[in-house]
């Protein structure tokens, strides 16, 4: 479903990704762990098409097509969702307006009919409920004045509404309290666990992986995937740390 081949990318003039290869087939949740500064968020932003992130070599195939042929908004339309490590505030735009326009413009891209206001609100209520978020929050401006944890939960409500085929979730667990972590984890399962969907789950902690059980776990260090294993790899990392596990490999 997502096939990353020998990916090299610069941020500005600095090479950050240095030959990253990774394949996530449909139906799998693949966790990415790795030290601070390894390039995890860079990978997410290269997939998202963030300006200033330049691919210098390699390829990414997404759902059978070349991901880099698509503009950032077209990637979303094609079913890619990026959960931000630092969600962005948009003053003056309400979540409801933002998400309705985003969803309808994705639907237009896919040649589907737009949702009416009523249909959208029904959907938004359902997904907010799934993440136990108050509908009142959705009437507020996008991420403005949200706490760190609320922003992360709101990202998952967005994901529920947009219903992507593939999600790249960058530290969605950071900033969440214990109860919220479970709610968000279960939300990810309910939205994304499906034979025709995939997830790249970037995280530092086992705690989220206890809820969203990954099929594969990879270590990203210095711009490459240096090790891949099953869920036990994450448990070993939790116990021993990167240096020990990577020295063993």
């Amino acid at each position, binding site marked *: 479903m997502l096939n990353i081949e020998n990916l090299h990318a610069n941020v500005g003039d600095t090479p950050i990704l240095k030959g990253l290869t990774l394949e996530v087939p449909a139906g799998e949740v693949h966790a990415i762990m790795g030290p601070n500064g390894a390039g995890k968020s860079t990978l997410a932003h290269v997939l*998202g*098409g*963030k*300006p200033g992130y330049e691919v210098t070599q390699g390829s990414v195939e997404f759902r059978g097509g070349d991901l880099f042929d698509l*503009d*950032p*908004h077209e*990637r*979303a*339309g094609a079913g890619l*969702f*990026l959960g*931000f490590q630092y*969600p*962005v*505030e*948009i*003053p*003056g*735009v309400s979540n409801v*307006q*933002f*998400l309705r*326009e*985003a*969803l309808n*413009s*994705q639907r237009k*891209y896919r040649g589907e009919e737009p949702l009416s206001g009523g249909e959208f609100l029904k959907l938004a209520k359902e997904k907010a409920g799934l993440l136990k978020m108050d509908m009142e929050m959705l009437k507020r401006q996008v991420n403005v004045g949200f706490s760190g944890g609320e922003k992360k939960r709101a990202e998952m409500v*967005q994901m529920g509404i*947009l219903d992507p085929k593939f999600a790249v979730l960058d530290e969605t667990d950071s900033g969440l309290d214990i109860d919220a972590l479970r709610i968000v984890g279960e939300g990810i399962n309910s939205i994304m666990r499906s034979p025709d969907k995939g997830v790249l789950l970037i995280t530092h902690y086992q705690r989220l992986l206890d809820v969203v059980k990954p099929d594969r776990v990879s270590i990203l260090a210095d711009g490459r995937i240096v090790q891949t294993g099953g869920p036990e790899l994450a448990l070993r990392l939790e116990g021993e740390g990167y240096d020990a596990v990577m020295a063993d490999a």
Partner: protein
Amino acid sequence: MPETATLPTRRDEAWRYADVDALARIGAEALDQWTEMAVPAGETHRESFIVGGDAPELRRIRLVLSAGARAELFVTNIGADYTRLEVEVTLGKGAHFEFGGITIGGGDAVREFVTTTIHAEPEATSNQTVRSVHWGTGTGNFLGEIKVARRAQKTGAAQDFKGLLLEAGASANAVPQLEIFADDVKCAHGATVGQLDESARYYMAARGLSPEETRRLLVQAFLGDALVELGDDAERERLLEAALEKLEERK
């Protein structure tokens, strides 16, 4: 016959960003024409309109507010040629003046609001909010003069200007001018000029909004501030829609 006025030059403070060539096309007679209105004590005058077309335009409004009166003026300036709205307001005791203005457009036209707010008596307040969105080599200006008479204690006067430039050649200018003779006065003034927030654009693209849709949403949010105090929903919608239609002209 109106007496022949001489055309102002850009050396004159209130005309420093004006398109004086366009002014010459309008003709000096326009300088003598004022729409005047007196708002009786305790009453409210509300007005909202759209100015600006293909020809240069100068419009001047003079308002005199008696004690406790209120004037609310909301204007979208979409001129494709030089379009200048001047408002002179004299505030009686405890009166209030509310102004919300939008300038929007590309090409090489200058659109401007020039206000003179005279706090003549105590306890009057004024609040002015202008938002300017330009591209091409278009310009938007807000020249706001505030005069507070010696006896006008407990005056509150606020001006807020924000410019949003969609292209490098565009410009937006705020020129506040304060002339204060009372000592118990609260004056607030803010002016910033910037571009569309790069990280918001990326975030919105990541959710599926095209660059055009993103721009429209962000511009709409930006302009909203100028019209928040406009209580009539339909009018607010009309003024905003006129601005957003102008935005569609941008290629």
